[in-house]
């Protein structure tokens, strides 16, 4: 099970990022907490940027140090003939996830946090 978690570390971090940016953004906007003129909300924007940076940092760390990430996920040291394959797939998934997290996080810089815009 731990090996499967290791394999999917990047997409799992992407899922964490999406949950942590969408949930609070929806709630804070619904209650109008921190919402200013034109639907801007610095609290929401800041939260999105911090969460995105954190998740992207972790994905980048896993990408650069797969051995350590494997130990963290499974509690054992990497071994076996499948290790190069697992590392390659994990890294590629982490790279794709980094891109997906960047896409989602960029929204906070480009759009007002709580406006309908129509």
């Amino acid at each position: 099970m731990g090996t499967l978690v290791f394999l999917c570390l990047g997409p799992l971090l992407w899922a964490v990022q999406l949950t942590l940016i969408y949930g609070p953004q929806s709630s804070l906007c619904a209650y109008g907490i921190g919402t200013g003129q034109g639907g801007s909300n610095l609290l929401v924007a800041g939260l999105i940027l911090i969460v995105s940076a954190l998740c992207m940092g972790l994905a980048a760390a896993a990408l650069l140090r797969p051995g350590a990430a494997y130990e963290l996920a499974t509690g054992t040291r990497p071994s076996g003939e499948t290790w190069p394959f697992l590392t390659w797939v994990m890294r590629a998934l982490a790279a794709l996830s980094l891109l997906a997290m960047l896409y989602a996080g960029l929204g906070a810089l480009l759009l007002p946090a709580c406006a309908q815009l129509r």
Partner: protein
Amino acid sequence: MSDAPHGTPRNDEFPNSLPRPEGELEALERAWEMPKGIRILTEINNNFVGPLYIAAAFLFFVLAGILALLMRTQLAFGDNDFIGQDLYNQLFTVHGTTMMFLFAVPVVEALGVMMLPQIMASRDLPYPRLSAFAIWAYIVGGLVFFSTIFYDLAPKGDWFMYPPLTLTEYSPGDNADFWLLGIGFIEISAIAGAIEIIVGVLRTRPPGMTLARMPIFAWGMLIFASMIVFAFPAVILATMLLEIERAFGWPFFTAELGGDALLWQHLFWFFGHPEVYIIFLPAAGLVSMMVPTMAQTPLVGYRLIVVALIATGFFSFGLWVHHMFTTGIPALSLAFFSAASMAVAIPSGIQVFSWIATIAAGRERLRMSVPSHFILGFLFIFTLGGLTGVMVAVVPFDFQAHDSYFVVAHFHYVLVGGMVFPLFATFYYWAPVISSRMLSERLGKWAFWLMFIGFNVTFFPMHITGLAGMPRRVWTYPGNMGWDLLNTISTIGAFTFATGVLVFIVDVALNFRFGLQGPRNPWNAGTLEFMPNGNYSMRSIPRVTSRDPVWDNPSLPEEIEQGRHYLPGTVTGGRETLVTSPIEAEPQYIMQMPQPSWTHVSAAVFTAGFFLLLTIKQVELSLTCGVIAVISFIAWGWQLDKPDKGMVDIGGGIRVPTYASGPQSHSWWAMVVLMLVAAALYASYFFSYLYLWTVSPEVWPPGGSPEPPPLLYPLGSAVLMVGGGIAIRWAGRRLPAEGARSFAAPAVLALAALLLAGALALEIYGHLGTGLSPTASSYGALVYMNAFLVAETVAATVVLCLFAAARQIRGHVDAVRRANFDNAALLYYYTSAQALFGLVLIHGFPRLIG
């Protein structure tokens, strides 16, 4: 990674020598012999249930297709009155529902059930009775659901059944209930199949078939089944909430009492969007199997395709709101989902380019057989569907195209292109595995061209019809809108497409002859599915050392047939298969498999009866069916968990046990996957709770509802559950020695079950004492819904604990043979954890915000 084998074969010799002992093959054939006569219905082997499953799914495809033709006839020109509005509403609802729930997902599961054992050289998947149960439940439930169209009882709310249209006020009668209970039930059947596929792919591969050598179809099926585990619970919860609101008035979706119709859309599309990829990924896996064979070259970018499959599986869960762009959600939220929609296009593109590269890199020119035709058709159609998918992922464009025929064109390009064309390629490609004759190349090409031309003539004009303003789901339109010609063309195309399907049916009738000894490897595939086979799959199980083992060792078929590889006979005297480790695929133990039986048939029929009779409010009959179903399940379970038969030799000096428990056991894996399903269902509930609070905080306590009961109640419940958990742990350490009996451990199990039920009763009693009503507000409904969800898992846990206790009393559970106990204990711990989380939420959250 640390699963060590019990021995390692020497590479310079076969695991088993010739000649094989006399009677070895006959004993194997006897163990796997299909029952005769009416008892064939009790068969559970993949070679019987797989084709049955495919045939049933194809029947639903044809039936739903006929409904489509009726709709196209109605829409052929403006102001047509061939079909009335009410029937038209039923037609498009049943068409969409049948195609999505009764055809697309089941046919893919069917292919998995039938082909995975062949591809992975296992005797069968690990829970063949569960597969057979799923199939019978699906056939009975599906046929009853579809037949509602003949009695004016079919649902009318489209395949997504949005409230408030589907609430009792706007959809009186039983029509919507047939959808809610029928589809909810069929989803359970799909989950059963998914558990089978996940554990099958991870644990029944041949030795040496590491994750790095696993055929892409197996990867596709693994991700497909994993997605079902996380996506389907959301729609199951949604159907439960809507049915409970319709039946008992708990206002989850009624705005005036704190509910919100948009909650349905969130839950439905959290399932509904991944559903598209649930359908597509296995089809992509099929294509990745066929393209290398037709090009006679290894797949280009194997690792990239694995990455693409996993990434698509994950990212597809981040797209659900892109079906809700026009519902008034803030623009930044839409941007998150638009971004995910763009991101998912990358892995899809990787696969398309990989297939094209494989074709280009082929050792020979691509063999233009019927499967190749359908694959090229798929590439053309699916790519166009993908491009319009990127268009509707752009929020401003979606505002314009939403709910128009443009969207109808887009999703048919994706679904028919992405799934139906690969499926027909597969029919032609894999037919020789179960047919003694090939299907006709000539008729196949006719079928392809009629379907390809017919499809594009039908759906391409719909892009224009949509952009010209024609909305979806209209039963007719004024003749002066300028839509007539485009619609007439679409109708002609639909009948052309149907003619292609008819040609395929004729081909099957003329040429398909059920039998396991068809032409051997007619396409010269590199993978294992065309190896000589019997009802037991392959005579012996090879050690796999590459991704294309047959290309690397052309004499492999003869070696397998001669019994030179692992497990050339039956070592336990019955049906069995080799279980290997999940990552490196090293032999771990022999799993003793169940025999044919009526129990799963009875369980399926009466489970279907329970749900369907509930739909028409025949409560007493429904409960009777439910009780018979539970008895059938217990009888079924009683025949499993066969005793240890010691260490056995499978060849090559490898000796493995014939029993396993704990994390090595296949039953432990199934229980873990089942708990993931339950957790996903509960997570959907948790989301619903927070969502409705965000929408209507005014109905939450202290202002809008009675305050929660005193803390003594939840604390009492928690103490009972924790006490039960400690008792279970105690009982687990004091299971009697092998072969002995004990009455202490069963008594403790029964006590723990009682404590769990007591905890639930105390929780409900506490809320009743505050005067909180489930019908007063969405808050009250959610509080009691939590208790309802806990009650479901508690009921299952109590049954499993009592079952394990009874097995102990009968001497079938001890310190070694302990799978029944371990399963009950695992579910107990899960149920307690979920219930404790629920206590914190239900009692803590209102106090936190109050």
